[in-house]
């Protein structure tokens, strides 16, 4: 069975696409973005369903970082899909389809978040991202700046183990949910969704420096959460 990696299909391997589209009988064929765009422009409904299946969950999670309730998050995502349809024919493919969709969502979610008076108004998105306060608990260090107690490496198979245990996955989701909205948005886009730094700055309207501080705080916290679940060597 030939399985084509998602990364391969989403890449700009324009010339390789016809080859990759050759179907093996039992293969899992994940359409590339360009294929999806073409099919959408031809009003292919299955392409739109594919798009929804691919991104709806992620969009909901991201929307949840900005707005107060899951109902509002659903509305925001629904508005996003409508905007995607409306903007389909003028989408210039200068960015990836995914980035474009997420950008639409981000803008809508922020506006809605402001209207819903969620904890972080848009204008203060950069606040709380000052690099003056350390992200790592100072209590972990001795007076001379060394670690107060030994830090031991995690086992190599730690990510796999964490991801295959329902409890630790749920705990990680919860931990992400508990982050301040701005940190949650950044770590979701950068680390969970794997978007590039520049894209994320553009989507969220933050500076590179602020984004990094937010990401640092989020990751520092999440590491301590995972540490609870990790086997020691």
């Amino acid at each position, binding site marked *: 069975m030939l399985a084509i990696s998602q990364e391969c299909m989403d890449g700009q391997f324009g010339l390789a696409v016809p080859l990759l589209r050759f179907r093996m009988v039992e293969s899992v064929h994940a359409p590339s973005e360009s294929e999806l765009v073409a099919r*959408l*422009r*031809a*009003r292919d*409904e299955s392409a*739109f*369903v594919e798009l*929804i299946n691919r991104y*709806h*969950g*992620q969009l*909901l*999670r991201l929307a949840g970082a900005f707005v107060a309730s899951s109902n509002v998050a659903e509305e925001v995502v*629904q508005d996003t*899909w*409508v905007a995607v*349809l409306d903007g*389909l*024919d003028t989408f210039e493919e200068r960015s990836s389809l995914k980035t474009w969709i997420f950008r639409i969502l981000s803008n809508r979610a922020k506006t809605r978040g402001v209207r819903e008076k969620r904890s972080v108004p848009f204008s203060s998105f950069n606040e709380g991202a000052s*690099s003056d306060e*350390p*992200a*790592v608990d*100072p209590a*972990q*260090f001795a007076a*001379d*700046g*060394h*670690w107060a107690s*030994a*830090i*031991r*490496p*995690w086992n190599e198979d*730690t*990510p796999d183990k*964490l*991801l295959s245990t329902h409890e630790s*996955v749920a705990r*990680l*989701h919860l931990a992400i949910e508990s982050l301040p909205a701005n940190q949650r948005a950044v*770590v979701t886009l950068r*680390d*969970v969704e*794997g978007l590039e*730094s520049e894209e994320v700055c553009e989507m969220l309207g933050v500076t*590179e420096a602020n984004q*990094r501080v937010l*990401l*640092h705080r989020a*990751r*520092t916290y*999440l*590491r301590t959460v*995972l*540490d609870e679940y990790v086997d020691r060597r």
Partner: protein
Amino acid sequence: MLTCQQLAELVTEYLDGSMPLVKRAQFQMHIGICKNCRAYLQQMKMTVRTLGHLPADPVAEMSPETKAELLQRLRSMGTKK
């Protein structure tokens, strides 16, 4: 020379690949001689890797009504010439 506490605050910048050369050299020098910081960096890398493979929340499905509405909207759009 960086302290462990200073290094811990620089981990994200380091992993981003955006650290200036001299600072990066200092960072790497410290990592080279400090077992604890080496372990901390490894843990942070694994945290990022874990996040990257987080399975999607199973509850986040679009309602059939919403899906139908959106498909109807697609259907009612004329084809781009």
